[in-house]
């Protein structure tokens, strides 16, 4: 499932087993190979945390990918590239938030052919990304288990036309249920599943306009409204905030007219005792450890292989 696997966007086409010497030009049909040496190997992997804030929460994951890869080029980051006729920079994205939901905690990993200081790289890339798609943290990658660390997410759901009392009643009804069946339209038709089991906690609070932890300079809302905090375990099928909203409608008839403003606040390892989501970069920050590099990584970087 997408929720727990790094999505590799690297091209796997072409050049999978070629020798290092340049191929002659104008070979017969179907046998052309790119000229020149194979791509330089990766020497460092850097993990980045980024946001989708304000109006840029409407950015889809594909939109983000294009914007990020263009920023890499403008910033002249020494990226590792895949082999073949259409080389792609080696970037792996983890568990992207749905289009329309904001996020304070999106993650990706890039592979470099020259070493860079992660902090400086973060500052540089942040300057080249549009405001709202902010690069907020960077670490040198250690280990290849990163996606496994993303066990749970914490979400904020702002309900502009729901009173705090209505929200409290609805969440109580939801939590009291053993299972809450919801439906979601997918490409394969309508799918029915339980939205309750994955929910580790769900609380409601009142908020004055602009009171939330996420700055929303351009957002609507002038009256007191309800804010939900949701911690959900990454399971298959994934339970998303809109599924929980469907669940609140199913369990308690809560049906906001104004669309909820949803923001992912955190994702990472789940502390089972406290039920909180912790920092997924913690193992990377522990020094000294297994250095990042071509060996033992999730991204194939040796010559003659493609990721």
């Amino acid at each position, binding site marked *: 499932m997408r929720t727990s696997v790094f999505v590799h966007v690297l091209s796997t086409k*072409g050049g999978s087993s070629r020798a290092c010497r340049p191929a002659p030009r*104008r*070979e*017969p*049909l*179907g*046998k*052309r190979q*790119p*000229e*020149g040496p194979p791509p*330089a*190997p*990766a*020497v460092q992997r850097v993990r980045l945390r980024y946001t989708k804030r304000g*109006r*840029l929460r*409407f*950015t*889809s994951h*594909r*939109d*983000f990918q*294009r*914007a990020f*890869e*263009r*920023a*890499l*080029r*403008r910033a*002249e980051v*020494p990226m*590792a*590239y895949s082999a073949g*006729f*259409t*080389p792609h920079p080696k970037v792996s994205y983890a568990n992207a938030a749905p*289009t*329309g939901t904001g996020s304070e905690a999106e993650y990706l990993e890039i592979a470099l*052919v*020259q070493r860079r200081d992660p902090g400086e790289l973060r500052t540089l890339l942040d300057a*080249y990304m*549009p*405001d*709202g798609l902010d690069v907020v943290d960077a670490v040198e990658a250690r280990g290849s288990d990163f996606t496994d660390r993303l066990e749970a997410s914490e979400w904020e759901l702002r309900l502009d036309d729901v009173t705090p009392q209505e929200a409290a009643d609805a969440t109580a009804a939801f939590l009291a249920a053993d299972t809450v069946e919801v439906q979601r339209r997918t490409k394969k038709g309508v799918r029915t599943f339980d939205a309750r089991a994955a929910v580790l906690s769900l609380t409601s609070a009142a908020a004055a306009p602009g009171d939330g932890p996420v700055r929303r300079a*351009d*957002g*609507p809302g002038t009256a007191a409204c309800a804010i939900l905090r949701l911690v959900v375990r990454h399971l298959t099928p994934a339970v998303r905030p809109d599924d929980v909203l469907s669940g609140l409608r199913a369990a308690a008839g809560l049906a906001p007219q*104004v*669309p909820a403003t949803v923001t992912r606040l955190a994702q990472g390892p789940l502390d089972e005792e406290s039920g909180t989501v912790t920092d997924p970069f913690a193992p990377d920050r522990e020094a000294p450890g297994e250095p990042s590099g071509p060996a033992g990584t999730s991204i194939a970087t040796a010559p003659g292989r493609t990721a």
Partner: protein
Amino acid sequence: MPVESVFPQLEALLPHVQKPIQYVGGELNSTVKDWDECDVRWALMYPDAYEVGLPNQGVMILYEVLNEQEGVLAERTYSVWPDLEKLMRERGVPQFTVDAHRPVGAFDVLGVSFSTELGYTNLLTALDLSGIPLESKDRTVDHPIVMAGGHAAFNPEPIADFVDVAVIGDGEQAVLDVNAIIRAWKDEGRPGGRDELLLRLAKTGGVYVPRFYDVEYLRDGRISRVVPNRSGVPWRVSKHTVMDLDEWPYPKKPLVPLAETVHERMSVEIFRGCTRGCRFCQAGMITRPVRERSITGIGEMVDKGLKNTGFEEVGLLSLSSADHSEIGDIAKGLADRYEEDKVGLSLPSTRVDAFNIDLANELTRNGRRSGLTFAPEGGSERIRKVINKMVSEEDLIRTVATAYGNGWRQVKLYFMCGLPTETDEDVLQIGDMAVNVIAKGREVAQSNDIRCTVSIGGFVPKPHTPFQWAPQLSAEETDARLAKLRDKIRGDKKYGRSIGFRYHDGKPGIVEGLLSRGDRRVGAVIREVWDQGGRFDGWREYFSYDLWMDSAAKALPEYGVDVDWYTTRERSYEEVLPWDHLDSGLDKDWLWEDWQDALDETEVPDCRWDPCFDCGVCPQMGTDIQIGPTGKKLLPLSVVDSGASG
């Protein structure tokens, strides 16, 4: 007067619409200026969906040219899809700019760029959503001046009731001139109101104000004359021509959208105009003379553009890019320069000769060689003489042989159906040509794994071309002719399976023909179609031929004309054409001679390499051909830290 962003109202609608990112703005290199610090404010519109409109070079250039001016603000707006339009109407959200989400109705000018006539209904949607009266005569001093530009504006008569002014030709200097007039009028306290401003614009001779002209008709429906109805308004309005493209290196900072668009690349216009003289081609006729950007100017634009955008592909644009006098050095210079940087180069408009293959090979030095596209346009030697497309079948076969021999796997061939004097036989020869291409390809590539795709569009006669007098082929005849060709290709047991066949039915071409050569009476049809819900006519899923025909049947009888009268009717020499008072520089007698030459199957060469053949543009407009070679070369960029070794 403060103007508020409508984004808060819009934001609540966005979760309910497709691809909301197209409405939020925030593109890289976009500009938001302080409203109150500017005294002239332009809303620039491309009347199609964002994904089509954003990459439009015309809008992008004018946006940057205007925003570079002190005290001038330009923002962009695009057509909203029907899903959002419906919600905006329910909630009273007006047409907005994507830059600062300001209501379009608050600007001084709404400038709309029409690449095609099929955007006319979208203009009406935008006006209506903006709260701007649909017809020019109903607007007050507080409404924006609605201005049309772009190639379709060379005959703005069908939208004459809906626009206030039209400007034809190159926009760079023209918008600055218009801007100065608006600024002066506002500084003076808007004397004489809207009427006075329009009059000041009209008096320049370079801005067409339809309401200052009366159109008189003969009893048979033809135009008798078009007369200015104010003193000081010129009889004819001239197109604008920018000379020395190196002085206009726009866009310097191309817009980079977050949303996916139809062209994801950095575009550099390497020259403007074309004198090949293809008789069907309106663009080639109305953009004369040829003006090249220098090789060094191109190199600088590519360099700065890539740094400012991060795009990974560069498109070298023009009407026939391989015709640049130094295209070989440009291609090699850029390919050398960006070899390490994984920047792709493309040459969208190419001609049929072997030199082209060398160019294409250079541009794809390290890239995939998937498909090459050529445009013979006509299937038979005879029809190619009629349209003045000087390509012989031997040229084509030699060219494709070289292409297949160089590892290209697929060749696409573009043709038109419905050309003047065309018979079934001319079109059926397209099939023979495709078979010959495949046969040669299999021989050269020593493989059966090659393809040739034949793509056919319906010919629509356009204003300001030698074919402006020509009868358009009816939709039924177009469809019948294409069906015969399809059967011929499908029936070829040996080669048919290697030939792809793509074509459009003849119906959209008839509507385009009605709008292209229409006059002011066609405005009533556009209005009726829009009233009945017509939108996005360039999109197959929205276009309705029946709606157009029903609306024409309702609106046109009172004038004694019909759709056939506008489309399949041949015009005579004496007829006053609806666009005759708009001066493209082309001498009408020369166009007529060229039309007669077409009927005689006589070719006319290119004035870049042959003597002038008196089309009239240069003397009329005070312009001249500007071509190289300059003899300069592209030098490698100074090496920073290439990061090539790892």
